[in-house]
């Protein structure tokens, strides 16, 4: 998909809660051997998807240096809404000062809800309907005790503000591509606390097929190849999948390493790909081309090709980098984690 005029990222912000649970701690409690990541982030008692969204949205506005009143759209992509009915988007819009002349809503598309919001924001900005649009991917992901997901389901998010040239941009969008099928690999029904998944079905026919479909589709439309990209970010539900899909597509470890934060953060679901992009932008230089491909169960992938603009790293470094959030941590054991994630009650 191509835009009318040049649309780009004018600001971004990240947020990762401070608590960490080591994957080995899950093994200590439930048995098992081997771990898909090192550790994952866990919310504190007063945090949820809304607070994470507000934190990263505020950093994004600060980094963009824009008047939040000119943000005409705020969309929060998440599968862990604190309210079943009552938007997160309105709370975030109010908190950053974007209300009342704003469209706001929440998006749900499993782990790609955040990048689905990217697509809408890009369209709104491209059409000229709004000057700036904010897309957030954030989650406090749920994993059933002892399920394979419990090692990785994590908390965090990132916000991106899209604008249009001649406004200053951090990275310009070359094109996007969405690839969606009805593939029921993972789901959570209403009133259920934990999602269910199709085990190995979530791999080849789901994650790999959709990411490869979207990545190849976008590169085909743009006439680009893996060698044209300095960096690549793929949805990271565990450490193995993004490394494998990068290899399958022809990207080396150097390309994905800056955005591969899952070993230390876990899978932040709708926040996963946006956080990977934020971590990559943190260390990128003008001219770097970045391929971003999300994956959401159900299923689909959104692919984006960005080219980093003239903004110097120092200019973007005025707000906390993703690596700072990763380094800022406090370990909790399984009992505290159980309390914080509502697995046990008074």
């Amino acid at each position, binding site marked *: 998909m191509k835009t009318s005029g040049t649309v780009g990222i004018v600001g971004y912000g990240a947020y990762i809660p401070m608590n960490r649970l080591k994957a080995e701690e899950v093994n200590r409690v439930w048995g*098992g051997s*081997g771990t898909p990541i090192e550790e994952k982030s866990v919310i504190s008692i007063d945090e949820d998807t809304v607070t994470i969204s507000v934190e990263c949205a505020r950093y994004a506005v600060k980094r963009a240096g824009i008047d939040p009143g000119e943000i005409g759209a705020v969309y929060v992509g998440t599968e862990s809404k604190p309210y079943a009915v009552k938007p997160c988007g309105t709370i975030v819009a109010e908190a950053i000062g974007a209300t009342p002349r704003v469209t706001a809503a929440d998006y749900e598309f499993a782990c790609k809800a955040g990048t689905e919001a990217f697509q809408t924001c890009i369209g709104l900005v491209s059409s000229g309907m709004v000057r700036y649009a904010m897309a957030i991917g954030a989650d406090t992901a749920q994993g059933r005790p002892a399920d394979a997901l419990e090692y990785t389901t994590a908390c965090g998010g990132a916000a991106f503000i899209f604008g249009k040239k001649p406004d200053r941009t951090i990275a310009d969008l070359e094109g996007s591509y969405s690839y969606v099928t009805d593939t029921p690999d993972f789901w959570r029904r209403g009133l259920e606390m934990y999602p269910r998944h199709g*085990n190995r*079905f979530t791999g*080849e026919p789901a994650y790999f097929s959709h990411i490869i479909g979207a990545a190849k589709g976008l590169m085909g439309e743009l006439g680009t190849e893996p060698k044209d990209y300095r960096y690549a970010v793929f949805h990271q539900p565990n450490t193995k999948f993004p490394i494998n899909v990068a290899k399958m597509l022809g990207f080396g470890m150097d390309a994905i390493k800056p955005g591969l934060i899952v070993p230390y953060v876990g899978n932040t679901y709708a926040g996963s790909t946006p956080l990977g992009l934020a971590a990559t932008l943190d260390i990128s230089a003008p001219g770097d081309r970045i391929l971003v491909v999300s994956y959401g169960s159900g299923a689909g992938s959104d692919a984006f090709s960005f080219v980093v603009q003239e903004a110097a790293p120092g200019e973007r470094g005025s707000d906390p980098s993703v690596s700072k959030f990763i380094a800022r941590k406090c370990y909790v054991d399984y009992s505290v984690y159980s309390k914080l994630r509502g697995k046990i009650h008074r």
Partner: protein
Amino acid sequence: MRRVAIAGVGLTKVGEHWSMGLKDLFAEAALKALDDAGTDDVDALYVSNMCASTLQGQLHLGAMMADAIGKSGITALNIEAAAASGGVTFHEGVKAIASGLSKSVLVVGVEKMSDGLPESVLATQSMSEDQEYTAYTGVTNVGLSALMYRQYTEKFGAKAEDIAMFAVRSHENAEGSPHAQYPFKLSIDRIMASPMEADPIHMLECAGIGDGGAAVLLRPAKRASDGVEVAATSVATGAYYLSGMRDLVSFDAVRLASERAYKAAGISPRDVDVLEVHDETTIAGVISLEDMGFAEKGRGAAYVAKGNTTRGGETPTNTFGGLKARGHPLGATGLYQIGEVALQLLGEAGACQVQDAEVGLAQSLGGLGSTCAVTVLRRF
């Protein structure tokens, strides 16, 4: 009784076929077998399947599959005997030709397991045991095998590494197999380092989960151009409970079925040039080898470790990878074994070919050795 020949073989690659359902797997194998035989003529269809009723909620596979290949009107039925379904169904198909009631019988095993959640697959596999006495306890099939494994090592002092060599050999043989799920070598170190599936059986000593379809076309045997002759088939049952077994280191059903098959075919184990053994776990493979007379009781693991079951060994065994490496799509497995033996005898085994094989034997087990089917094939 008429002599019976395998006139065509059709095997799908065992694997996780996410885009293929039961009917697709069935049709691919069945049509391959018909193509191989160079005919479209079928008057009876025997389907072998174990899990469709629980994993797909599907019964009545006979008529369904006949329709799937455009053969509505023929006699068709499904046969279930746990993981021995394939061998038992083949036995019945052979009887239809031998009796003179049918002229061209398609026997097809099909199983679609990858769509099932692990707990559903495990629960279905456990249905091969008594729900009122054994399965309700939650014990898995591998868990039951682990009890036999412990008894075996205590009684004979067999080394765990020697028993695990059964899996090493199966993987060695799978290299080059076009239809194997895991066509690569696996080292003994990797097997012994894998997690326990049911102590002392490691995960990599167990067959995995896969989808597959395997078909053979049976016709009256007259001459070499008819294919491979079915020299004997036999089915025997054994104790349905561990507590009822004569001892925990032997499968009576295997002994009975193989003795009957040897007698009917007029052969002894020494005459078998190529062998397919039901290695659902390494210990099941080792005990089966012994009960069929290929190794002395208590010496089966050492027999395997010494290389006697390699393609160039005394008894080439599981020449396409066996259940461990070719894969184990339960209801289809027995037909894979029989199809593979037929390919060996026809000299059509490609990279897996055993030289100058004239007699081959396939053995499959249902439950913890409570059903055993043995098939002996012979080159014309």
